[in-house]
C-alpha cells in the first residue's frame, strides 16, 4: 500500500470545508429511510407477536373444545358407536353424555346414544364368517365377547336374548360360540372349541 500518499489524502480530507462536514452531521442512522426500516422492523416484530398470539389462542381453543370432543367421540367409538351415527347430536351433548357414561350413570341422552350401539349390533352380518382352526386356537377362557369378535371377526348371531356366534372353520366345519351376556367371557380354550366342531351342512 502507498501508505504515505494514502494517509496524506485521508488527512487532507479531514480539513475540507466545514460546510461539507455539516452536510453529513447527524445523517448516520437518522435518515427517513432508516427510520422507515426501523418502523418496518417494529411492524414485523408486532406482526410476529400477533401471529404468535393467534396461534396460542387457537391452540387454547382447540385444547378447550375440540380435543375434549374428539376424546368423547373416541370413547363412544370404543363402546361400539360410530362417529357417523353421532351426527344428530351437538358436540356439547356428546361431551355431556360421555361424562355421564364415565360416572356410571344414565339419562335420556345416554339412553338414546346407547340405542345407536344396539342398532349397530343388529347390523351385524347374517352369514357365518370363515376362519381357520389356527385362529380358533388363539382363543383363551378369559376373552370377552368383544375380544373374541376382534380375533375372529364379526359373524352371524343366531342367539335370541343371548349371543350365539356362528363361524365356518377351515371351510368344512361349523363352530358356535355362545355368550350369556354382553360382557361375558368365553370360558374355554380355543382347542376345546375345536373338539366341538360340527361338519358344515351343505
Amino acid at each position, binding site marked *: 500500500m502507498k501508505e504515505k*500518499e*494514502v494517509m*496524506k489524502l485521508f488527512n487532507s480530507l479531514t480539513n475540507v470545508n466545514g460546510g461539507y*462536514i455539516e452536510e453529513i452531521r447527524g445523517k448516520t442512522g437518522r435518515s427517513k429511510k432508516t427510520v422507515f426500516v426501523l418502523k418496518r422492523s417494529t411492524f414485523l416484530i408486532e406482526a410476529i407477536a400477533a401471529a404468535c398470539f393467534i396461534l396460542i389462542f387457537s391452540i387454547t381453543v382447540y385444547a378447550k373444545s375440540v380435543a375434549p370432543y374428539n376424546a368423547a367421540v373416541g370413547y363412544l367409538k370404543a363402546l361400539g358407536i360410530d362417529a357417523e351415527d353421532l351426527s344428530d347430536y351437538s358436540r356439547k351433548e356428546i361431551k355431556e353424555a360421555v361424562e355421564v357414561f364415565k360416572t356410571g350413570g344414565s339419562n335420556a341422552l345416554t339412553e338414546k346414544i346407547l340405542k345407536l350401539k344396539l342398532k349397530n349390533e343388529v347390523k351385524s352380518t347374517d352369514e357365518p364368517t370363515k376362519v381357520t382352526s389356527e385362529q380358533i386356537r388363539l382363543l383363551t377362557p378369559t376373552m370377552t365377547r368383544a375380544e373374541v369378535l376382534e380375533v375372529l371377526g364379526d359373524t352371524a348371531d343366531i342367539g335370541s336374548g343371548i349371543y350365539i356366534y356362528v363361524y365356518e372353520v377351515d371351510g368344512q366345519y361349523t363352530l358356535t360360540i355362545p355368550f350369556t351376556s354382553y360382557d361375558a367371557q368365553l370360558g374355554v380354550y380355543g382347542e376345546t372349541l375345536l373338539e366341538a366342531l360340527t361338519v358344515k351342512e351343505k
Partner: protein
Amino acid sequence: MEDSQIISLYLERDKAAILETEKKYGKSCLLIAENILPKAEAEECVNDAYLKMWNSIPPNRPDKFFAYLGRIVRNTAINIYNGSRRKKRYAGMMQILSEFEECIPAPESVENVIEEKALTEFLNKWLAALPYDDRVLFMRRYWNGEAVNALGREYGMSPEKMAKRMYKLRQLLKSELEREGYSL
C-alpha cells in the same frame, strides 16, 4: 442547546460546555472515532478531543461548531492510529485506506507533488463540483467512515451497487487529480 450557546459556555470557561457538547454530539464523535479506532480507544479519543476543544476555545471561535469538533476528533483518532503498532487490527480503517489507494494517480502521469494544504483545497473544489448526493455519500464513507453495507441499506441499494458507486467516485477523484497533473 444551540451550537452558539455551547460556544458561549466554552468562551465563559464554563465546564458545562463539555457536558453539552457530549450530550449533543457525543454519539457522532464516537462514530467518527470508532471508524478509525477500536471501541475502547475511540472513547478515549473522544475524551481527548473534548479536552482539545476546551483548550482551543478560546482563543478560537468556530463558525461551524460540529465541523470544528469533528475535525478535532478525526485528527486525534488519526494521530492515535498512526502512533499505534497494531494498525492492521483496525479493519474498518484499513478498508477505507485500501479504497483510497485507488485514488492515487500513477507517478508517471503527474508533474507536481501536491502539499497537504493544497490537496485540501483541491478536495474542496472537487467536492463542490459533485452532485449533492454523491458528495454526501463520499463524505459519509470517507470522512465519517460509514460502512458500504450500511449506506447501501439506507439508500435502498445492494452492497455491490453501493460499492460500485463508491468506486466510480474514487475513479473520478483519481482522474481529476491526474487531469490537474498532481501527484501525492
